[in-house]
């Protein structure tokens, strides 16, 4: 990798000079200040999978780096006070906003933001006696704002993982208890299914297990892109627009991809259930249909309840006002 960098030294130096000239405020940085960071980024993102990257690819890579953000970060690392004040002035809002979103409690948000700034400034010293700052991990590929949000998110996950998990489990249990209680009181067996017959329960569980296995297998058979798209859409509940932006295509394309993935999964699930679990074609179709209709009814009822309660709340609020 070092050999590859040495090989393209003139190209890299030329590109770095252009990068500094591109920056609106180079903050007095010289090529020598920037070079280590560029080498690191090239090694991480370009030469790791392609040691034979061409000079054009190297040029394009450095050309795509965010010159202003990178110069600001490098100046901060160098100890430029004005750069620090600029960084805080322009990005403190970003850090605080992200902290407010990521912190489980409002009162923790300020602590989280303070922790981020401490991490950025550096709390420990390396072997050379220099402060080890989180800023040294910024490559300039993405925006500084996006990187800061990622830093906040990561730190929040690390700090509050255990707490968040406990809260989530508690909430899930509460919701489950509430749903069961509501169902029992209202004698509404449609919201949560109750079977008195043990055989029926066993059979249903068996069928559900088979379908679940087939589904997981079908998802695993998808391409990495489709798998990621499907999981982000169904599991992480991202919007198609957001997913599309991440992949670099329009949300309509993302929508078409989702439809195609559904079709692929149906075919795969039907095939797995028929071949692997000896289900007949009718059984497969009937089971999928029944399962979906049950879920649909339940979901529709829950959604209807939510909408009605929201409307009632709004009416009450407006009448009070």
């Amino acid at each position: 990798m070092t050999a590859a960098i040495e090989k393209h030294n003139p190209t890299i130096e030329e590109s770095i000079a252009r990068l500094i000239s591109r920056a609106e405020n180079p903050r007095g940085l010289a090529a020598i200040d920037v070079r280590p960071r560029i080498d690191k980024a090239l090694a991480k993102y370009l030469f790791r999978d392609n040691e034979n990257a061409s000079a054009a690819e190297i040029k394009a890579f450095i050309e795509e780096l965010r010159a202003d953000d990178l110069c600001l970060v490098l100046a901060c690392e160098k100890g430029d006070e004005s750069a620090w004040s600029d960084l805080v002035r322009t990005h403190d809002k970003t850090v605080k906003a992200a902290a407010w979103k990521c912190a489980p409690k409002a009162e923790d948000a300020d602590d989280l933001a303070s922790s981020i700034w401490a991490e950025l400034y550096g709390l420990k010293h390396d072997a050379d006696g220099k402060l080890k700052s989180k800023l040294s991990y910024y490559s300039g590929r993405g925006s500084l704002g996006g990187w800061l949000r990622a830093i906040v998110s990561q730190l929040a996950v690390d700090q509050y993982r255990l707490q968040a998990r406990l809260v989530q489990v508690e909430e899930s249990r509460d919701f489950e208890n509430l749903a069961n209680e509501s169902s029992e009181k209202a004698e509404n067996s449609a919201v949560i299914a109750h079977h008195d017959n043990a055989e029926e329960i066993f059979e249903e569980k068996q069928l559900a297990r088979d379908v679940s296995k087939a589904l997981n297998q079908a998802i695993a058979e998808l391409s990495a892109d489709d798998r990621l798209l499907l999981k982000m859409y169904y599991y992480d509940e991202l919007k198609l627009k957001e997913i599309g932006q991440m992949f670099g295509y329009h949300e309509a394309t993302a929508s078409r991809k989702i439809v195609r993935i559904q079709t692929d999964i149906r075919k795969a699930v039907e095939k797995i259930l028929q071949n692997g679990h000896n289900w007949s074609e009718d059984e497969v179709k009937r089971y999928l249909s029944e399962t979906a209709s049950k879920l649909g009814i339940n979901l529709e009822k829950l959604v209807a309840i939510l909408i009605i309660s929201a409307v009632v709340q709004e009416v009450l609020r407006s009448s009070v006002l």
Partner: protein
Amino acid sequence: MEIGFDKEIDAILRKARGAEVVTSPGTHLDADEISAFAENALPDAVRQNYTAHLADCTRCRKFLSNVILLNSEAEIETASSAVPAEIKEVKTPWYRKLFVFPQLAYTMGALVLLFSGFFGYLILQNLSGSKNSDVSYSIEKPNQADKSAAAANTSAPVFSNSNTMSNSTTTTTNSTVTTTSANTNSASTAPANTANTAVLTEKKSETAELNTPIVNQPMPAPQSTPPPPTDDNKGDADKDFRVQPKNEVNKPNAAGAVREETKPRDKENAYTVDGQESTDSSLSRQKMKTERSAPESPKKQVSEAGATRKVGGKTFNNVGGIWFDSALGKQKQKTFNRGTKDYLRLDAGLRSIADQLSGTVVILWNGKAYRIQ
């Protein structure tokens, strides 16, 4: 919903969310990689590798999704902060603001005050109205016996409608409203007011000529009614009527045979001068109510009757003891008593004029007619 959207698989996949198997193969991506991936800012080759990892690594995918959400929210905030503050403010309609709790209380209080004031004003108006209604007038009852006398020389009101009535036929005088007043028939307005019903058939055209110019003349000019002439002096009366010059006081007919049957409603306010009852066949009782009020000094009025004065750039004619603004039209008159609060609230210029003229003054001020007494 898109064509081909599979609701069944969609529902099953949504349900499978909770049953996701958590996996974390290999080394996790760092913040720089995640943020660059979220912004689609990585070289293709690296991207493919990261995609494969993210598709199977629940932790990194969640991290990525969180960063994407944060970026998305930041974009929205940036977009909204770019909107000018004036546009960003949601304008609540004024009628909705009235029903916001504190405003509602104030609004109700204001309404109560408003209605109280309104009713109070109405009551005051009624009270002052009752004071102003102290008007005397008498109605000349139709009397067949007096037909001829009435037809001979019944002073008609100046108003166009009454003139029309009197011109149409002599019998209309039977229903003429007469009012007692000082016998100071305004000579200045006499020709205009000669709606003398004692127009003989052969004189109709002449009378019409005399009446025509005053048809639309709005000047109210209550007149004293000279005694109706007898059949003998019909001609004289008519002659008097036709040649009656301005500023000449109507003289009672020499025959003096006044045989009007009058019924004064308010005897206290009814007054006579020189023992004669004056009649006024003006428009209606309502109008009479406002135009007629008890004069302060009949004698003084007699002395000033027919006089013309210029006060404050306005010309006033004294008719029946009342000073009428020459510019007065058919405006509805509003009555004010001197010395009252309402009077003091009037425009200073208006009051100045009124103070310079004694007795009742009817002034046209800013397009409105004020009766000050």
